[in-house]
């Protein structure tokens, strides 16, 4: 048998794992692997910053459901990737990050570009490895992919010393993976399923509270089946948007800090809260002691640590969300003596109550005659002019919340946002990853003037690989979300938040060979968006919006979710 090098083995394994695209950035310790990649049948996207490479791999994973792969060099290359890794960790996104490392003989010697990246990333990876012998290389990489994509997904880092990448050895045959210490529970316990179903039958005012776990498990069809079967209203977390059609009458939109009035009221008043693939984050629950106080709680989650972490759960189901929802649907389909029509009718008064709340305080915004652009208008126009059929990525802050509130997501894996970590600078590189996965789709990064600057250099990446992403900057010349807090809770002391110097975004786009467009009046918004959507190039749209527009509704931090500040 012909011997292979470590680099050749890595490439062979990546192909075995179904990888087609690698996002990365070269450097000394990883040069041997890039040298081998030159002759390999794999697409390489070279970012302009390692953080961008990891976010792009993350964006790719979010829209495809496959494992995203990032390849970085040792030392600063690896540390630059840490924010990307932590972002993927907080949102349970399957990525494998390969980092170069100094040769084994130099590890621990403070060698050039040496850093203990396994130590640094231990708390922000699902698992990580330093490959310490050539025999371990292939089995470790196999484990890495398995761990990243199974159970509650997450990032896995594999640190590759340079002398392992160059070593020669016999490529090992594929063996069954034996990991007695890692056996995620994916099948729901039938007794728990039955308990949950009986609680659902008993409930008069049930609410489905749906998170990113439903999307990760590809369970949207099973969720839709359950809601239709029993007429249960649905609210989604930021990460759950798209798991249930946003235009469906049973959708109450997002809940929590910037959620809809009806969603927060419904959760406060419901008698049964069915949490699916959600983790009762503080941005969702507000003041814990006042959260869903009347409700019995069913919690479906693949991760046992999520259960009863923040909120006491009455009926836990530890399982893959899709399997659990299938089992619940199956129970209702096969149980005799249940009249689904009656069950649906029984929830009708509750549904009417929710509609009343919606009418009382719909998700809306105030327009005025001034002609000044309101950011919500831009998002609504983007929704309208794309027919809702676009992949939307966001940065973090007001832009993210307006995108979540006013774009109607009808399909899973079309909203890509850094929910858990809240990473500014995520949207542009994530859009690059998404566009790589779906070259024919419209991909739009909804950004702010602050956050777009955090990874603006990736415009060059988008240009280099002909990825015609569109960027809509909601430019208020402020770090808007923090300014909003300063307005409401810090006596309007706008310190550190005004962007006193901004680049001319139109000129900046041109400098990168992209197209720059600007709208300063409401009447210009539509034509700018239309022009952008019909341009086969990267387009940066600079929307000069009302400077002190706030995101409403808003639950002040630490308050009960019924104590909303409304428009």
């Amino acid at each position: 048998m012909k011997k292979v090098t470590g680099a050749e083995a890595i490439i062979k394994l990546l192909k075995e794992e179904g990888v087609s695209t690698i996002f990365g950035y070269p450097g000394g310790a990883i040069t041997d692997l890039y040298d081998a990649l030159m002759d390999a049948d794999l697409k390489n996207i070279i970012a302009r910053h390692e953080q961008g490479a990891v976010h792009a791999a993350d964006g790719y994973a979010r829209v495809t459901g496959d494992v995203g792969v990032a390849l970085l060099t040792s030392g600063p290359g690896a540390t630059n990737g840490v924010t990307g890794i932590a972002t993927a960790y907080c949102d349970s996104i399957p990525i494998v990050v390969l980092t170069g490392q100094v040769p084994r003989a130099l590890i621990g010697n403070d060698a050039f570009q040496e850093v203990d990246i396994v130590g640094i990333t231990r708390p922000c990876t699902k698992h990580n490895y330093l490959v310490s012998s050539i025999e371990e290389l292939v089995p470790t990489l196999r484990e890495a992919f398995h761990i990243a994509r199974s159970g509650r997904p997450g990032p896995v880092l594999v640190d590759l010393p340079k002398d392992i990448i160059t070593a020669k050895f016999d490529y090992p045959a594929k063996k069954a993976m034996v990991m007695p210490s890692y056996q995620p529970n994916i099948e729901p316990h039938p007794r728990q399923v039955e308990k949950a179903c009986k609680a659902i039958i008993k409930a008069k005012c049930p609410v489905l509270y749906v998170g990113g776990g439903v999307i990760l498990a590809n369970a949207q069809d099973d969720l839709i089946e359950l809601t239709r079967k029993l007429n249960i209203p649905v609210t989604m977390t930021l990460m759950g948007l798209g798991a249930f059609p946003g235009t469906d009458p049973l959708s109450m939109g997002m809940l929590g800090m910037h959620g809809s009035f009806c969603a927060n009221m419904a959760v406060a008043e419901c008698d049964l809260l069915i949490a699916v693939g959600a983790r009762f984050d503080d941005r969702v629950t507000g003041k814990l002691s006042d959260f869903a106080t009347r409700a019995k709680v069913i919690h479906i989650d693949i991760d046992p640590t999520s259960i009863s972490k923040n909120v006491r759960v009455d009926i836990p189901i530890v399982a893959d969300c899709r399997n659990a929802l299938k089992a619940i649907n199956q129970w209702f389909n096969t149980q005799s003596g249940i009249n689904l029509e009656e069950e649906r009718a029984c929830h009708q008064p509750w549904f009417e109550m929710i509609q009343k709340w919606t009418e009382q305080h719909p998700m809306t915004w105030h327009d005025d005659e001034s002609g000044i652009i309101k950011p919500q208008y831009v998002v609504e126009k983007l929704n309208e002019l794309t027919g809702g059929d676009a992949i939307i990525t966001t940065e973090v802050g007001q832009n993210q919340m307006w995108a979540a509130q006013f774009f109607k997501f009808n399909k899973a894996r079309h909203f890509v946002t850094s929910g858990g970590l809240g990473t500014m600078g995520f949207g542009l590189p994530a859009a690059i990853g998404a566009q790589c996965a779906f070259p024919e789709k419209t991909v739009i990064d909804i950004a702010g003037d602050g956050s777009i600057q955090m990874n603006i250099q990736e415009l060059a990446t988008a240009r280099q690989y002909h990825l015609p992403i569109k960027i809509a900057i909601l430019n208020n010349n402020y770090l808007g979300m923090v300014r909003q807090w300063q307005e409401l809770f810090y006596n309007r002391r706008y310190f550190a938040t005004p962007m006193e110097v901004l680049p001319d975004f139109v000129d900046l786009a041109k400098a990168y060979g992209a197209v720059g467009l600007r709208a300063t009046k409401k009447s210009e918004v539509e034509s700018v968006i239309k022009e952008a959507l019909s341009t086969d190039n990267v387009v940066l749209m600079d929307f000069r919006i009302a400077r002190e527009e706030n995101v409403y509704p808003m639950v002040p931090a630490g308050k009960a979710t019924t104590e909303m500040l409304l428009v």
Partner: protein
Amino acid sequence: MKHTISVQLRNNPGVLSRVTGLFSGRGFNIESLCVAETMDCEISVLTIVSRGDAAVIEQITKQLHKLIDVIKVTDMAEFPYVEREMVLLRMKAMENTRAEVLRIADIFRAKVIDVSAKTFTIEVTGSSSKVNACIELLRPLGIKEIVRTGTVAMARAPKNK
């Protein structure tokens, strides 16, 4: 409440750091921690004594179990178990206290393992409470130095009828 948690884990590099990092990162408390290989050199057992209410202990056991290298987590409170820790004490051996030190050591079935002109080194083994009681009795007689191991624990074998 005090809980003794026994953790069986794969003896991989960095595994101890994963466990201690989990405790510090999530604000869990460690009163003592002991770790060593089992009969199988690829598996270690780590015994942690921690404090917390039921919800905290539940999170600790779940979070430990979530670590990829952890095979099994047992909260010893769920079973009858035995626990031991060991302490080495360097006692002043003055003319007027020598006999008393030896007498107390004898009561606690402690062993004198090193002797010098002015000191005894005593080994005490037992449950934490026994070790503590012994230390308290010896303290007035002049302890120069203490080294403790932390607790190790094992479930009691089932009694066959």
